[in-house]
């Protein structure tokens, strides 16, 4: 193996044999032996044809949907699973665990768990003793070390686990979905840790659904879909391929969507949207787009003012932007039954590449009554030509105003 490589995966495949009725009792075995048949076995190809060469010091991402085989691959690299075909070569000390808090036992105190988990990562008691204080203070759990772990909140457990994990002495680290477990504060800590890993030139294999993190930290990445590698390459390209895969599938689904889906739309319908559309559902670098709304008054109970608003959410359900007519100082209070209104919102396209949803609402002035609340009324995608890992991506203009010459 090339000495510059940290991990080399050659033609790895993994097959799980799932007996439909697994004979895991003696009776089952005896009866199936007597009947001289093995019973139906379902062959599940969890991974096929995986080839990977990860260089030393590389931050490598593995992306893919749930069940695509990412975690199986990580477990094979860690040596927890044996590959059915192919082989994995490791060059350097590999951290043997892939999740936070491995070996944590709720019946033990925080202190005891530190020693146990430390031993799992290869630290002797003496080594743990010397860093015990740092571990505890980083986790901000000084007062709780003599309490049993089962009495910790999940946030406290994660903090303790993370505080231990970052001390692991290894050249190759396997990180599986750590970002999914913590709150915003924890994520910040994670990102700081990733930056450190990059600085220290550690080899990292990182599994995540968070494309922003993949783009920002990974040098290269691999997309796995249906147990096969789809693309391996620069992190940005891979994350784009992943996003595009999602957009295509969701847009396929949407055509069948029912407008009055109960969960996604409710209200008393005194005023309601009759149609809504967007002038372009596949945005590129356009500077603005338009949302057209048609409204109708269904009954004549309305005396108060109405507020019409919209909100744009991304795939992760984060509200990116939105406004309403009240904020724009437009008042709508004089209605006659059957009257129609058309509204057009002109929205600056500051969105980054991804899939977005528009939520619409009609409420009274004090936002107490809901006349119409319509989530995911419209779906659209954005694909910017330039790459950028951040949440929004407005058009930036750069002008270099003056370049002074050094004085002689």
């Amino acid at each position: 193996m090339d000495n510059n490589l940290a991990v080399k995966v050659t033609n790895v495949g993994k097959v799980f044999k799932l007996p439909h009725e697994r004979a895991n009792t003696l009776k089952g075995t005896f009866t199936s032996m007597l009947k001289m048949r093995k019973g139906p076995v379902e062959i599940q190809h969890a991974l096929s044809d995986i080839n990977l060469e990860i260089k030393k010091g590389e931050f490598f991402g593995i992306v893919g949907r749930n069940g695509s085989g990412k975690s199986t691959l990580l477990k094979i690299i860690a040596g927890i699973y044996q590959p059915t075909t192919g082989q994995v070569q490791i060059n350097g000390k590999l951290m043997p665990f892939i999740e936070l808090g491995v070996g944590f036992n709720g019946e033990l105190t925080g202190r005891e768990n530190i020693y146990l988990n430390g031993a799992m990562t290869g630290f002797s008691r003496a080594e743990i003793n010397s860093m015990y204080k740092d571990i505890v203070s980083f986790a901000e759990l000084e007062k709780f070390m003599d309490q049993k772990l089962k009495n910790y909140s999940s946030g406290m457990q994660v903090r303790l686990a993370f505080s231990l994990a970052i001390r692991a002495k290894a050249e190759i680290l396997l990180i599986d979905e750590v970002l999914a477990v913590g709150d915003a504060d924890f994520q910040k800590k994670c990102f700081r840790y990733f930056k450190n890993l990059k600085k220290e030139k550690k080899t990292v294999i990182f599994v995540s659904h968070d494309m922003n993190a993949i783009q920002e930290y990974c040098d290269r990445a691999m997309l796995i879909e249906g147990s096969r590698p789809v693309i391996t390459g620069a992190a940005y390209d891979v994350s784009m391929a992943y996003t595009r895969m999602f957009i295509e599938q969701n847009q396929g689904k949407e055509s069948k969507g029912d407008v009055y889906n109960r969960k996604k739309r409710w209200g008393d319908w005194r005023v309601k949207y009759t149609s809504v559309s967007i002038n372009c559902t596949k945005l590129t670098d356009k500077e603005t787009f338009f949302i057209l709304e048609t409204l109708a008054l269904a009954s004549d109970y309305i005396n108060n003012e109405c507020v019409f608003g919209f909100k744009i959410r991304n795939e992760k359900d984060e509200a990116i932007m939105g406004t309403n007519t009240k904020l724009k100082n437009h008042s709508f209070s004089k209605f006659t039954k059957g009257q129609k209104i058309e509204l057009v919102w002109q929205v600056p396209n500051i969105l980054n590449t991804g899939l977005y949803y528009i939520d619409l609402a009609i409420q009274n002035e004090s936002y107490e009554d809901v006349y119409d609340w319509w989530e995911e009324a419209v779906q659209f995608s954005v694909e910017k030509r330039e790459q950028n890992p951040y949440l929004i991506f407005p058009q930036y203009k750069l002008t270099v105003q003056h370049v002074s010459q050094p004085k002689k």
Partner: protein
Amino acid sequence: MRKIRERYRYSVILLRELVRTDFKLRYQDSILGYIWSLLRPLLLFLILYVVFTKLLKVGNAVPHYPVYLLLGIVLWNYFTEVTGGGVGAIVGRGDLLRKINFPRYTVILSGSMSALINLFLNFIIIAVFMIVGHVGVTIRALWLIPLIVELFFVSIALSFFLSTLYVRFRDLSYVWEVLLQLGFYATPIFYPLSRLPHKYAVLAILNPLAQIIQDARYVLVTRRTQTIGQLYHSGYVWLVPIGITLILTVLSMLYFKKRSRNFAEEI
């Protein structure tokens, strides 16, 4: 070479911590705590002693019967602790096995180590009984060391074998429970071997457990204990139970090693 030492170091660290955890968890929240591991064999001793000296009068002919009986119970107790705990050891740690790659044998070894510590503590009680019962100790008591080594291997061999088999056959824990019960009566623990008809005695003594217990009694308690050598009038016959132990150890370790690669996905 460096790698081997690294690997070995990791196992030792892990083993130490697993044994420690095992101890902490076992008697946690019980009032008497650790004393129970001494109390249990003592209580069993008390029951058997009353039954077999006062009611059935089996033990009256045996010199130093209390120590004789207790020694048998303590050694047998070690065996049941290791194998009984060993059956579910791998499955019980399934969560860990699925998440981290560590030498799997440490799980079995740690269970065996905890039991070994118990065994030594129980020997303190035996020593007390010996002092109270005026049982003289001779240099022959040193034979206990190889006997305990043999006991260690026969127990851990079965533990390796059972824990591996249990991953696939979950009925095994019940089967083993019954077999242990059977073994308790088939092994000369509360009765002297001489009470068995000769044709059964020569069979019973081939069981390594029976051989170990009888030998231990011979070297520690009373020379009026039938050993395997006396029964067969030959020293070579010792090779049979020792051979059984050796073969069992090698085979079970190979089996464990082969199957342990797939534990993570089979549990």
